[in-house]
């Protein structure tokens, strides 16, 4: 049971999920559509003042990602639950966390694809101009997404197997997301205005700490979440 075997197992789970998604595409299309729809709604709710919309853009993007991503996480166990395939998957030899890592990787790819469409649309809709330093923006986005997807995949392992899962997942996940949301929005907003106060670095450090703590915690706790 080497680390290399675990990694191969995780990759197999990720590829399996992504293949199933690629063949239907129903999930990606629906979730991306919802993300864009949320952005439109924000536009109607905040507009038509261009300045106000530009200031709220980062927050709107993150909420669109949160609301659409939460639908994806329940789906990633749903396929297996419908086919009665979760128990056989757990019966395979090897550590349980490799299943979790596989699911997280597949969900990361999924959410990044959604972001690839939602964010450019948001930049057009909200008249956002990135004043250089796009690399730092992408780093903030990636760090925020890692925290979001890790915890989302983790809580979905429980919520997807409970009653009224659609309600339960956001109830569990969103309060946990508050520090990551705050840090991502503040860092991105600061970077958009040129980071005059030099505050983006502190938020990025918080985001890294958040990711490290919750990736480690959910890796350790996944066994307990999935085995019953």
């Amino acid at each position: 049971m080497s680390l290399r075997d675990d990694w191969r197992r995780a990759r197999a789970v990720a590829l399996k999920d992504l293949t199933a998604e690629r063949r239907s595409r129903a999930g990606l299309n629906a979730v991306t559509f919802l993300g864009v729809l949320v952005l439109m709604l924000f536009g109607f709710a905040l507009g038509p003042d261009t300045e106000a919309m530009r200031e709220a853009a980062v927050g709107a993007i993150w909420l669109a990602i949160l609301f659409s991503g939460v639908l994806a996480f329940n789906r990633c166990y749903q396929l297996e639950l419908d086919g009665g395939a979760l128990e056989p998957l757990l019966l395979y030899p090897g550590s349980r966390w490799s299943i979790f890592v596989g699911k997280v990787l597949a969900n990361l790819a999924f959410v990044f694809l959604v972001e690839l469409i939602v964010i450019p649309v948001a930049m057009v809709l909200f008249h956002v101009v990135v004043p250089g330093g796009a690399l730092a923006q992408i780093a903030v986005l990636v760090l925020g997404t890692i925290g979001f997807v890790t915890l989302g995949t983790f809580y979905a392992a429980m919520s997807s197997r409970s009653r009224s899962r659609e309600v339960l997942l956001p109830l569990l996940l969103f309060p946990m997301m508050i520090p990551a949301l705050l840090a991502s929005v503040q860092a991105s907003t600061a970077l958009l205005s040129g980071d005059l106060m030099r505050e983006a670095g502190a938020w990025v450090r918080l985001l890294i700490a958040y990711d490290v703590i919750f990736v480690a915690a959910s890796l350790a706790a996944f066994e307990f979440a999935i085995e019953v």
Partner: protein
Amino acid sequence: MTASTMPLAAASDRRSGLPWGWIAVGGVLALVAAQVYGVLTSPPDRDMGHLQKIMYLHVPAAWNAFIAFFVVAVASLRYLWKGRAADDLLAASAAEIGSLLTGLTLALGMLWGKPTWGIWWTWEPRTTSTAVLFFMFLAYLILRKFVDDPERRAQWSAVVGILGALNVPIVYMSVRWWRTLHQVQGSPMTLDSTYYIPLRINAVALMIVLVAFIAHRYRSAMITQAADDLEDRAALMEGGSRA
């Protein structure tokens, strides 16, 4: 089967243990006395007048809510470590009382905030963290309601409780940074001893009530579970010795 007889034994042990009924009555009486003492002895505040008296319930409720949350975290860890159903029930009992106290803290804070600051709600770090704590308590209790299998419920809620506990300091830090980068909120905690002594007494009195409440909920949860186990066993035995 040995696991199912254990809660029953533990429940009857508890019954013959500390007189929790009297402790609860004593705690409530102590709290009433402490409130009266606080209201009578402390002079009206220079800025807030008699409004300041809300502090004697608001602040102890907040402190005790955090104690309750700490109990949830420790009992959850212990459950995952030892796998005893009793620890899960203790965590659940503490979460129930904790959510009540957090709700009370927020409600009293709003009642205090409106006349003193002119606003019902402020995004001040402690206020906001308490609200997040409240939501996490509620999510924990809702999760328990949505899961029927006892072992699954225990394991899942323990995990949710521990991750929630990890999140509390991070939430507090992030909200504090968020606010202090913009404005500094005045703190009502710079206190004279005439206010501080009644505050301490009230906090201790409320803590007795908290412990008694948790003990009560814990005992009734144990008894309910023991009754469920007996019912299950009776159902299994039917057709055997009974019929």
